[in-house]
């Protein structure tokens, strides 16, 4: 009963993501972002990506700093405690080297749910009266990208309608977030593609289903039968996953529930260092180019990774230093 193998390497996975791809990710801010694959995209010098995502984080800062991204469509970017905002996005915005499109976080979540459910839009009452809905600030329209040439880019940022059913007044219709390729970093995937996610699952099931192609990078590939013994623990069915990659520590420097904590020191250094393009280039030279994933892990070293490793009972590290104390 075993399907043909879906297993590929990180480098093969990166090759599936072509220049110009509309790309989205698993996770949330500094948790479960597919960084190992993102590094590989940078090594392969991918260009003109259109990122569409819920709250963003380091993975997109890497891509943006490396010049891989033409469009960033989201609602937030930063490193939480370890970096106040996305310095690379901020620099590219100031220098007009990137198209940015702002929605609210709930709007993005609803947009992914719509796409995942085969609905062209969903209705919401959030963010009424804010500049998120300011028609002058439809940045994809300003960039000429709402011309219908790319069937995944909606022709409008919003549509306002009145509720015809309950007299509940103004509703904002937000368009489905349609994705070419989604890349997920998760704890476990089966040989046939079944995904088990531990802890909060963020928008991973929706992001997966919003995409035409899904690549899963897992801490471990486990026997499919093991996962199918407890199907209620699984979050994504086999047939929604196209490729699987085994990549231990594949989300570092972001955290992975039950496996490892966020590497705050790494993120803080990244944030401080990459406020200039020169700084980013130095970071990339040190941590991305000339290394593969094994080389990257070796450079981090065993003691550092051991400190990040999650406590089995608690699902997070008790050895990592978080604050001043």
């Amino acid at each position, binding site marked *: 009963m075993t399907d043909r193998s879906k297993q590929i390497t990180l480098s093969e996975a990166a090759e599936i993501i072509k220049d110009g791809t509309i790309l989205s990710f698993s996770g949330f801010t*500094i948790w479960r972002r597919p960084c190992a694959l993102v590094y590989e995209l940078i090594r392969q010098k991918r260009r003109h990506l259109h990122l569409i995502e819920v709250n963003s984080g380091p993975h997109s800062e890497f891509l943006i700093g490396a010049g891989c991204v033409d469009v960033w469509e989201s609602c937030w970017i930063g490193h939480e405690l370890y970096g106040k905002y996305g310095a690379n996005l901020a620099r590219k915005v100031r220098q007009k080297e990137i198209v940015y499109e702002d929605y609210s976080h709930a709007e993005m979540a609803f947009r992914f749910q719509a796409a995942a459910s085969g609905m062209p839009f969903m209705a919401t009452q959030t*963010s009424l009266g804010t*500049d998120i*809905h300011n028609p002058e600030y439809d940045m994809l329209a300003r960039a000429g990208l709402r011309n219908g040439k790319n069937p995944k880019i909606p022709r409008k940022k919003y549509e306002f309608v009145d509720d015809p059913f309950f007299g509940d007044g103004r509703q904002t219709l937000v368009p489905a977030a349609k994705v070419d390729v989604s890349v997920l970093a998760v704890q476990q995937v089966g040989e046939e593609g079944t995904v088990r996610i531990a802890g909060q699952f963020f928008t991973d099931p929706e992001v997966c289903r919003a995409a035409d192609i899904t690549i899963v990078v897992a801490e471990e590939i486990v026997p499919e039968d093991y996962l199918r013994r407890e199907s209620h623990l699984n979050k994504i069915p086999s047939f929604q996953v196209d490729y699987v990659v085994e990549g231990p520590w594949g989300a570092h420097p972001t955290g992975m529930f039950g496996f490892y904590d966020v590497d705050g020191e790494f993120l803080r250094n990244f944030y401080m260092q990459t406020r200039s393009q020169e700084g980013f280039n130095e970071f990339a030279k040190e941590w991305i180019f000339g290394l593969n994933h094994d080389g990257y892990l070796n450079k981090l070293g065993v003691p550092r990774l051991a400190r990040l490793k999650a406590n089995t009972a608690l699902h997070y590290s008790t050895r990592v230093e*978080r604050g001043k104390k």
Partner: protein
Amino acid sequence: MTSARDTAQPDEYTLADLMTVAAAREVRDHEVVFAGTGMPMISIMLAQKTHAPNLKLIFEAGTLDGRPRELPTSVGDPRCEVGASVASGLYEAFSIAQRGYVDLGFLGGAEVDEYGNVNTTSIGDYLNPLLRLTGSGGNPDINSFSQRTVYIMVHEKRRFPKHVSYITSPGWRVKKWPSGEWVHRRELYGSAFRGGPSAVISTAGVFRFDEETGRMYLETCHPGKTPEEIRELCEFDLDISRVIGETLAPTHEEIRLIHEVLDPEEIFLPRPKKRGSAG
């Protein structure tokens, strides 16, 4: 729960402690509270350990009614999930909020105007920004869906402008698009109207809003500040006619909880130099 004899002296607490405690007082027992990362989280956990043991905490990453043992560094942190009723996802958290379960939201901001409109997106012209910030995150959502929203902010004159550079999160008077005319929030939200910003707790004082005019007014000054000084710290004409006194100082027990129980690692709140006697 706050008795005069237990009140700490000014050198026993930091300004951040004072704000955390003031924010905690905004929580009522049995409420469902939706919180962002950082000081809001400590305030809520403090309320949970003092006067609101039955509050229910929602984090936007998907944790519902969690009871963290240790302070999470972010709402996506596995530390959020400990003792939770349900670990779910973003869509679930926002759907629950839009459905109307949330009493109180706890947020931060970079700028706030007289009507409580908050900016966390960018400074200067949005099309040619001087500084790009994080963006909205769940700020407008939590604010739109909650009955009351409390903001915790650094107080600088440029952060309390006449108009914010970009309205990320809606106040009591907002813009009706596509025309952009200013209308009362109640008018625009219609039956989705549930309330709005109920307090701003800055490094200078505690501010509230007149729900009819939508204007901010000063309620209490932090110890050592006068209403006039605080008015000078706003670019708009702050209403100081309704001041009721000084912001209540933390108790020794509250200081102990903050620094010994909630944030002993000093992740968000450094300890005061002189330690209180309690604990």
